[in-house]
Structures are given as C-alpha cells and as structure tokens.
C-alpha cells in the first residue's frame, strides 16, 4: 500500500449527508474483477448526463478547478451503504487522496485505511466552515498533514484532527496489515488449538 503522509491541492465541496457507496461507484460500473479502471466511473450517476458519458456541468467534480481535486469535503455519514471497496478505488483513481467528513460508513472507512486513502473526521461545525470557505473562494486549496494531524483550510486556518495511532501508523508506513497478522501465525494456531478443545463443534461443523 502506498504510504500517506501529506496531501496539498484542490479540495472539492460536497455539502450533503449520507453520500452512499452506490453513488460513489454505481453497481453497474463494476463490470470487471480487476481493481483498476475506476477513475472515470467515480460518481457516474451524478457526474454524467443520463444515457451517455457526457459530463454534467452542474456536478462539482466536472467544474474546474475541482476536476483536479485531491481532497473531498462532505457532510455526515460519507460512504454509507454497500461494502464495495471500488468506492475507495474510484476516489483514488480519480485523484482523491483524502476525504473530510463528520462521520463515515464504517466499512468504507475501514476500506480507506487499507488502501492509503485518509478519512479525516471533524465535528460538523468545522466541516460546515470548510464547506463555506470552499464555496466562497476562487482558490479552494487545502493541505492535510497526517504526521502532524493538522489540516490547513482555504483561508489558512489550521485545524487539528484525531485518528487512532494504529490507523495513523499504518497509513504513514503504507503497512501490509495482512503480513503483520501473519507474523503472528504461531499465536493464531496456538489460540485455535486451545479453542478447539473448548468449542469442538466449531471445528467439525463445516465438514458436513
């Protein structure tokens, strides 16, 4: 996984709640087993006019400078709904490295952490302030520094954000979480041996 340390660039405002993963990547767009090719499919139902791949000029990511957005700011419960990891892949492959919202769909958030996309959580007042700033400027630029846990708003204001130390370290290192768990193989096998004596039915049930 690519490490995340810092991102600086255009931030796009999406001032609505409950942006679900069906909106981020509609099911009809995931037509291949591959993890690639998702950039142009991001927000397809909102981004393109019905029936064609003609960009809808009203949609934020179709309007310069947001066509180059690296950060997305939304309301509450961003990424709720389906577990589809292509929601994260499509944001990344469009160029988004960081999402800022009041809260997230938990599976989406877990998927972000495991793909090097930073989900920043801020109180709704702070999110609202960022949305107002982004909508009221011709230079919607922001910076997010994970090491310092600080973001810089379009007006130059700095804000601290919280993230758990495990998740922070994993993002900063671009860590292979599966490899870290596999390093505990002996511990896992010992646990299972003990568990098998305690809950034998769990270890015979699926052989029927």
């Amino acid at each position, binding site marked *: 996984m690519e490490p995340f340390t810092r991102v600086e660039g255009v931030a796009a405002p999406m001032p609505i709640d409950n942006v679900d993963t069906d909106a981020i990547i509609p*099911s009809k767009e995931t037509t291949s087993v591959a993890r690639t090719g998702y950039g142009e499919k991001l927000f397809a139902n909102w981004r393109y006019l019905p029936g064609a791949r003609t960009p809808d000029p009203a949609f934020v990511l179709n309007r310069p400078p947001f066509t180059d957005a690296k950060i997305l700011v939304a309301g509450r419960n961003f990424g709720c709904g389906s577990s589809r990891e292509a929601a994260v892949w499509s944001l990344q492959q469009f160029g988004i490295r960081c999402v800022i919202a009041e809260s997230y769909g938990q599976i989406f958030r877990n*998927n972000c952490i495991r793909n090097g996309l930073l989900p920043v959580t801020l109180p709704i007042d702070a999110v609202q302030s960022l949305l107002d700033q982004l909508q009221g400027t011709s230079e919607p630029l922001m910076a997010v520094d994970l090491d310092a846990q600080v973001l810089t708003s379009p007006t130059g204001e700095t804000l601290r954000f919280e993230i758990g130390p495990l998740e922070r370290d994993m993002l900063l290192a671009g860590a292979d979480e599966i490899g870290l768990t596999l390093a505990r193989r002996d511990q896992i096998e010992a646990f299972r041996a003990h568990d098998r004596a305690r809950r034998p039915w769990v270890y015979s049930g699926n052989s029927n």
Partner: protein
Amino acid sequence: MTRPTTLVEKIWAAHAVAELGDDTTLLLIDRIFLHERTGGRMLQGVADAGRQVFDSATVLGTLDHIIDTDVGRTDETKFPGGAEFIQTFRDGAEAAGIPIFDIGDPRQGIVHVIAPELGVAQPGLTLVCGDSHTGTMGGMGALAWGIGVTQGEHALSTQCLPAKWPKQMRVRFEGQLGPAVTAKDLILHLIRLHGATGGENSALEFAGEAVRGLSCAARMTLCNMAVEFGAWTGIVAPDETTFEFLRGRPFAPHGADWDAAVAWWRTLRSDADAVFDREIVIDASAIEPQVTWGTSSDQSIGVGEAPPSPAAIADPVARASAEKALAYTDVTPGLPILGLPIEAAFIGSCTNSRIEDLRAAAAILRGRMVADGVLAICVPGSSAVKRQAEAEGLDTVFRDAGFEWRESGCSLCFYNGGDSFRGARRVITSTNRNFENRQGPGVRSHLASPLTVAASAIAGAIADPRDYGAL
C-alpha cells in the same frame, strides 16, 4: 465476583487472539462466506500475494449477487461481465478447496438467507462476508459483520481480523406488536427516530419483549438493517427460539457436539447489570407499518403520515440533503403518502425473502390481483425457500395475483446494469436501501415490509396492509 458483561463482550473475549493497542483486538474469525461479486477478487488477491487460504474448512461460497433470477439462468448474465466474475470465483474456490453453492445446487441462495438455513450461522460464532448486510446473522446470535475485499483477503489469509472495540448499545422494543407490524417496521421506525448514524458504529443488541417474541427470520430482518442505522453490527441473544431453529440443520452441531454447543450458547446473554454506552427503549405497540419517502434509511414515516417539510430543518447540510431527496423521489411534503401511485412492487432480498415473509405476503395476495400496470416480482431468498413455498402452493398464489415468480438471488435489490424494472419509476420494495439509483436509473424506492408491498401492489399505490386483513 466477575464484572458484569454484555453479550458482545462475551463473544469478543472468546475470540481475542491478541491485543493490538488502541482498543483494537485481533479476533479469530470462525466462518467466512464468499459470493461471486467479490469472492473471486479476494481469492485472486490471496493467490497474487503468494499466500494461501488459512483454513478452507471455515469458508463457504454461494452465487447470489450477479446471477440472473430468471428460470433457466446460465453463466451468461444480463449484468455485463457477469461470466468473468462467476468463473473467477469458481476457479479460485476450486483451487483453494472451498465448496460453493452454484447455479442449480439445491443449497444456492442469498448468502444471509442460506447461512442460517443450512445451520452455518450459529450463536457465538464470528462470521464475516464481503457484504454490508452480514450483520443479518446477528439474528442467530452470531457476531457477524461486513468487510471489503482487502479485509476479506486478510480473513482468508490469517483466519483473523483486527477490530476496534465498539460502543455497546442496546435497543429494547417493549410491548406487543400491533396488527401487520413486522420487524421491518421496527427497524425503520428506530432509524427514523435516531437517524442513519444513530447506531454510532456500535455493536447493537436488540432486546425487549417484542424482540423475544420474534422468530429467527424476523430477528434477522431487524439485524439486517442495523448497518442502515449506522451500527457496526446488530445481534439478538440466542434463546430456545434460536436453538429450535438450528436443531438438525445440515451444518449445525450434532450429537455430543450439539449438547456442548447449547450449553455454551445458553451463557451468551448480557448480564442483568451489564453496562451499555447507550440504551434506547421503544414502545413497540405504538409503531404502525412504515414506509420510506426519501433516499436515506432515516427518511421513513408511518403509512398514515405525510413526509415532513425540509423547511423545518435548521442545519443547512441536512436541509439540502432532504431537499435533494425530495427532488429525487418527487413526493410532496405535507401530503399523505398513502395512495401515492406505484409502478412496481418487489418482494425479495436478504432483508425480507424468507419463507415466513412469503407466507405473510401471500396471505394478502390470495384471491386478489395486482393493480393494472404494476410490475410485481417475487424473488425467494434461497432455492430452499422457493421449494418450500412451492410445496405450500404459495407460488400459485403469487402467480395468480400477477407476480413474477423467480429463482433465488439478490436480484433487483440493486441495479447492476442488467435486469431492471423495465421503465417503472416508483417501486415499493421489501429491500433495505432506498438510495438514489439503487434499483435502477431514476428509480424511486420506497422501503416497506412484505405485507405493505403486497397490499400496495394490489392497490397500485402505497397502501396500509391493515386495510387488507393482514394480521
């Protein structure tokens, strides 16, 4: 004396392989369920990394997400690219020694319907699947949650997943349910009261008199939509209802294993003085059949009510969201939702497609006809549910009423570019998500119980199942 603990705490402790710090535990995963939408991708990821499936005896797969639900279906799906997903999944599963319930297998069905039906989902198990509605298995007393592809690879490769200790929440539905009020109505009402993020990423235990009285299927409906409430997962403490449901099912414990399992299962309940971070108590007897009006699970009302006006919402983002939802669904605030004309009706999905859902809907449909111009579709949740329904003659009731009677699968719960409602715009549906475009481009989804869907199909408009003699 030991400290009082919650149900989830007991299951958690039985699976804690290691503490990773930051309130995160490496949990042993007892069962992994795969499906053709992401199963092939996960298995390919494991193989590409040069790893192996840790214990294939803990993994099962089914075809549900992509396959057609038409009679005579094959690998050539209406969904473009379906054959690639199906074949990749089969190849990966075969290489890893994982059994899958393929097209034509009598055990095939929607993953969250067949897992309990086959006895795979059991109390106290940790169970994960690449599907956000995996929490459905909480209805059996399992600790089950949905994951993405990368975490799927993690679980397959290591038999473990790191999980952050969740808030402990309990929702007690007290009192008796009114006529035609179902688990679907309870959960929609809860989400309406406390919002689509009201679950606060918690482990949510459903309890109370009304929940104790629910069948396993209804408990699964309740837990199915915990994720729409913003909970990490939902769970109901296992009891005699659960044990009776499981007894004799193919993957359930047998003989001495059964006795040992039941003895442990009986301990899986929150202690009387266990402390929850949040507790909500709801008078279930005051709830009427619910229906959604918007594009978020919390945009729900009783069938006798009218959608609220967004003008009353002070928060600008929340108001803009409600206005966007109203513009999409084209319903009018202040006007009763009852009588709003519908063009299609759908009974199916992991929320409401079990045999008792079909029986309840059939009781309304018997001797009646779907309104002219309404496309009505019933998709049983599993091949076994379909066979059972046919043995009871329910398929005839559905067909005689004008419903299409399909093979089992996820079907039109979501639009994948293939199967569609053929131009119908407004759909009353027993599914779990009313998101924009979820069931098709421009399709407006009104979530409701199978009873309300059946009544509305007959009326040709959103209807109250109590007006159709539903019990």
